[in-house]
């Protein structure tokens, strides 16, 4: 019996395994090269108080969350309730980065009524009309959420709407752990 005839079969099985893995990966979930790196600094005008500004500098010494959102983003509406509960229950200081929304030609002041209607869970809302800060943070789809530690290092990035499962299994344990770390 020549075993050589088994080779194509083995090869086929390997190929199928490879393709199966390839196609079941979510190609939109690009791993962030930012994890473990310092959060890019910004200093942006605040929504509601445009003469005041909010910067990453100001958040140093605490574990905080950056949530990229926009009134035109459908998934942001989807995560809003879950996110709000997480921020309030665990008292997480949060900057909502209003991405290419407030002050743009298309959306003007839509975000004000959006937050008015759904509630504003953010400690600060930073306005990034042109999306420059977004680019600096490697944002490629909204919503995105970043967990930053006391030293200003990005420790986690969540792409897409935050789910209750992600809050329970990832975000809460992470925030608890990071709060124990020295500043």
């Amino acid at each position, binding site marked *: 019996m020549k075993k050589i005839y088994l080779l194509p079969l083995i090869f086929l099985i390997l190929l199928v395994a490879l393709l199966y893995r390839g196609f079941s990966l979510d190609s*939109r979930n*690009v791993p962030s090269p930012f994890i473990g790196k310092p959060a890019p600094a910004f200093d942006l005008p605040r929504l509601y108080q445009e003469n005041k500004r909010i910067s990453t500098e100001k958040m140093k010494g605490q574990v905080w969350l950056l949530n990229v959102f926009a009134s035109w983003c459908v998934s942001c509406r989807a995560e809003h309730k879950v996110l709000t509960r997480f921020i309030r229950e665990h008292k997480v200081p949060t900057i909502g980065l209003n991405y290419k929304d407030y002050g743009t030609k298309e959306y003007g002041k839509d975000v004000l009524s959006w937050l008015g209607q759904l509630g504003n869970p953010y400690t600060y809302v930073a306005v990034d009309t042109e*999306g420059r800060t977004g*680019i600096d943070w490697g944002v*490629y*789809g909204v919503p995105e959420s970043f967990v930053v530690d006391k030293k200003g290092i990005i420790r986690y990035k969540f792409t897409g709407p935050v789910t209750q499962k992600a809050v329970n299994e990832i975000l809460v344990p992470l925030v608890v752990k990071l709060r124990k770390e020295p500043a």
Partner: protein
Amino acid sequence: MTYSLKVLLLSLLMTFSVAVRAGSIETYSFDTPEKSAIYKRLIEELRCLVCQNQNIAGSNAELAKDLRRQTYEMVSKGATRDEVVDYMVTRYGDFVLYRPPFKLKTVLLWVGPPLFLLISLIFLVNYLRKKPQVAEVTLDKTQRDSVRDLLK
């Protein structure tokens, strides 16, 4: 014009029309032709992350526009190709490059296809060599006569 010449011309036309279509929308001007060349090369090399199978030169997505603007601003301030690539890779990972760098994670990507070709060639050569020679058949006189009769 012969038929095959027409086909050839048509396929050539189709090839070039793709290149024309891939032009970007806005036109940025640079103070030196070198900068302009760096910009053009970069937007061909960088991937649009929301429309993953396009580069940022060919995409009209918002993110692609922003990345073009970012590239333009950096290049016009004198950034080199490598500096812009570094900036993008730090933020979006190797995935943002259409030509990924050669490293441990991408070894299979680079080495895989030539390796596959090599293995296939070895198999092919072996197969052809091993192919049994057709044994010579010797016929006796009666058999030869019957063949001749058949061929008549």
